[in-house]
């Protein structure tokens, strides 16, 4: 690992000043950044430890929403009573990710900035436009079983790895960003970018901005919600497909729906197309399946991941069926 300067920021203004240094990076839980530093994928000159900043609280918002500080640990958020009661899919999504030890360290802000686990991104000898723009994409024609079928481009097919962000995408979460220039808010669904021909630019965050909070709006439909994660082993694996879903039906007709997918797309994927199909439709297996097919209609498989299209459709259908028959789960 390269030698780097370390400083611990006592407050937000100090952190925002320090990030102006060349090659500076914020350090939260370190569960991803430090790994990448060990692999020489990240080589910061300065590491600004932000874990002492007062951004570690979950606060009530007027009207029933929550404001989650960027430094709230994943495990803390998953265990938070209000989260479990109002947004069970979020608690489930967090608990489906990583391991207990990692969740104890990982922060909410850091989770938003996780890097892909594409094998070619983390191997310095491979071509990867995300790591080294212009070097090509060795995942195309290589091991791409885990790659994206939605939102990919010729230059990048890497999936976004987060479980938590899938739930946040479904929940209309808003990311609060702060810099010396002020505070701005970006909806989670617009926070992560599609790769296009600049896969190295992954989010809307500017180089001098700090994530300070994630806001969850009041969303009554989310009280009955689920996160279903499908992976290659029972725990400690990234999603092949995941589904975050909240649904309300009255008299057999869907009156409210939130649906997002993980593991299949280059960013946390809000399933707008499926939501449009489902809203006002009868709450039946056929509707679920039709909506799932509509969402995946634009999917483009790579050589090894075509199964994800069928799997995603089945997972959407199964999750909505489960919501209908068993309700949400806390």
């Amino acid at each position: 690992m390269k030698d780097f300067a370390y400083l611990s920021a006592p407050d937000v203004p100090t952190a925002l000043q320090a990030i102006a240094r060349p090659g500076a990076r914020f350090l939260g839980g370190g569960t991803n950044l430090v790994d990448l530093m060990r692999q020489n994928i990240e080589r910061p000159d300065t590491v600004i430890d932000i874990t002492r900043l007062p951004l570690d609280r979950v606060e009530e918002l007027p009207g029933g929403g929550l404001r989650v500080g960027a430094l709230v640990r994943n495990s803390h958020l998953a265990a938070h009573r209000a989260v479990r009661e109002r947004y069970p899919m979020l608690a489930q999504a967090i608990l489906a990710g990583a391991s207990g030890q990692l969740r104890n360290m990982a922060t909410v802000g850091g989770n938003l900035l996780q890097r892909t686990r594409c094998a070619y991104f983390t191997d310095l000898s491979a071509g990867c436009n995300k790591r080294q723009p212009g070097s090509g994409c060795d995942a195309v024609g290589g091991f791409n079983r885990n790659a994206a079928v939605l939102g990919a481009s010729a230059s990048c097919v890497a999936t976004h790895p987060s479980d938590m962000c899938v739930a946040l995408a479904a929940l209309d979460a808003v990311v609060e960003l702060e810099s010396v220039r002020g505070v701005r808010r970006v909806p989670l669904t617009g926070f992560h970018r599609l790769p296009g021909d600049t896969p190295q630019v992954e989010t809307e965050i500017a180089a001098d901005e700090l994530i300070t909070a994630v806001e969850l709006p009041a969303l009554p439909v989310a009280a009955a919600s689920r996160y279903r994660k499908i992976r290659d082993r029972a725990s400690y694996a990234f999603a092949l497909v995941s589904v975050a879903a909240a649904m309300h039906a009255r008299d057999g007709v869907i009156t409210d729906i939130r649906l997002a997918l993980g593991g299949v797309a280059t960013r946390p994927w809000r399933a707008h197309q499926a939501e449009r199909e489902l809203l006002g439709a009868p709450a039946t297996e056929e509707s679920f399946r039709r909506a799932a097919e509509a969402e995946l209609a634009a999917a483009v498989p790579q050589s090894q991941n075509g199964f994800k299209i069928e799997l995603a459709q089945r997972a959407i259908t199964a999750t909505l069926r489960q919501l209908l028959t068993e309700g949400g789960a806390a």
Partner: protein
Amino acid sequence: MTTYVGEAVDRVDGTAKTTGGARFSAEYPYPDLAHAALVHATVARGRITRLDTTAAEAVPGVIAVLTHRNAPPLKPAPRVTPLNLATLASGTSVNYLNTDEVHWNGQPVAVVVAESPEAAQEAAHLVEVAYAHLPATVDFAAAEPDAKPQKSNLIMSGGAVKGDPEAALAAAPVALDLRYTTPPHHHNAIEPHATTAHWADGRLTLHDGAQNIYWTRDHLAMRFGIPKDDIRVLSPFVGGAFGGKTMVWPGTILAAMAAKATGRPVRLMLTREGVYRTVGGRTPSTQRVAVGADESGRMTALIHTSVTLTGRVGGGPEQVTSQTRHLYDAAAIRVQQNLVELDVLSNTVMRAPGESIGTFALEATVDELAYRLGVDPIELRARNEPARNPMDGKAFAHRKLRECFEQGAKEFGWAGRNPEPRSTRDGRWLVGTGVAAAYHPSWQFPANVTVRLSADGTALVRCGFHEMGMGGATAQAQIAADALGLPVEAVTVEYGDTRLPTGPGAGGSAQTASVAAALVAACEKLTRLARALARRTPGAAGASYPEILRLAGRDSIEARVGSDTRLGTAVGQLRFAGKLMSDRRRWVKAACGAQFCEVRVDADTGEVRVTRWLGVFDVGRVINAKTAASQLRGGIVMGIGMALAEETLVDPRTGRIMNASLSEYHVPVHADVPAIEIRYLDDPDPTMPLGLIGVGEVSITGVAGAIANAVFHATGRRIRDLPITLDKLL
């Protein structure tokens, strides 16, 4: 008299391991210790055309950057000769850092030595290497059709035939001809390979996690051109190995080389990625299993062929078809193993090399035949259970496979099973059960042992064997305690040091039996000595052995089995070879068992979960009920990984391993493993020392077959390509 043998005695190293007192190879402190890190080649085959170490050398704390330009000379890897089994120990034939040639993607091309591991790693990253590519064949699937038949040698037969199986197959009323594939695997011991090397006065002390310290010693002596007595290898604790620490891989040699070049003690602990890049794993395979049967289910033809790979720079064949020579009484049988050479790192032994993947293909085929015939799979096996070895009519030393199935069927509740696929559903889960036979040949190697009995009532057993977690020292302490009539706590066992009488390597599930044979003989010698002493000592009649020594005024007496002199070693190896040959002429020896499992498959998504396991094994006499069961359980866990998740991803374009980490190479996690019930018959094999057959490997065999069969029962889908991932079940 047995007091301790068979009991669940706590492991003697348990406290040391759970309190951190056990010292592993990367934990030996030396004043002035330096740290090493490897630079790995990024091409499959080529020549180094440019090498720039300037930036690496500028990293503060860097002591040396060794490359082919400045590394000390190393003698070439020895040619394999049956006269010196240590010649088998070369991980590869590459002369590390003595050549500008690259023979596999990952080969070490430079070693950095620095004051800290961090500085060494950083400098290793900064070494710049450019290559001229040479043509390389790295794609097993593409090269596999060009495989050549494996030649037979003393240790392994490449093929055999009885009758005319192809004609019998063509004529059989019921016939199956199936193709299977298994991917490469890696051992993934929790302790990455680590070496601490220290030279003083031309002599080398090496702390190295190893499964055969004598091979390591002898190999290094050949490579560095020094007498083997000038090398001491210590390996008292090994954090798992599974075959991955049997051969001498580059890290061990390069640690010794770095220490020699810098005049400093050097520690080289491989990164997890470094283990994948420089230590071989299990070969991938393609297999054909064809079986013909009459309407009653009697097999008339059985054919099992395989293709596996070796590296062009090392590795060897794998006895994929071994169990097919022994399990079923088919009228005509053909087995043939084939090999293809690739420009990849040598393959190596990994838990039950051959049988682990061979039983998958064979046992899945037998299950398929049972369904084709409408016969229960256990009943079908019973109908084809041979009285003598089917290939050549030799006697079985101990054959209790039927008993294993019978006991297992009773305890698992097999009777009354509805064989219909997709017949059981529990909510969203399709439920299925499956069985398979487990089979692993049993071996025995020479061992030299000394036992010293002291007047204070303690005994010291000394033998350079290996403890990788299986409980070897505990088992030998139990055996010695029983033989000498001492409490087990009074017995100390020294192992893992080449200064000790030469012990066997830990391999072939043979170590416990091999040491036990010598230990029992040594204890008999010792008790004869003690009784002779008693006869000469007034008042000693009827006294305990320590009491005899006290009455005779002796501090201790010692007995030795085997000799470590050059002549003694030669005589020992000759005697061993003779016994091996005569044993093999007379008997077929093996551990076997019956694996029973239940799986659940999500009806929507194809996720497979193993929910029940029962393994019933014939492993002869069990020495330690706790450690034996634990080892058998561990093999099943590893088999579950092989069946459902494990696969080393080798990029067919570059020969590069693309999942060289425990987050992307999926071993089973706790949530993947159900409670595992272990039973053993505890019926001694009269042809083995103390009647014991090894327990290290048999339990991984049959696991993938049982799971594949249960998945079929649950879903109606036959998956013949491992691992059985959910995409194959959609």
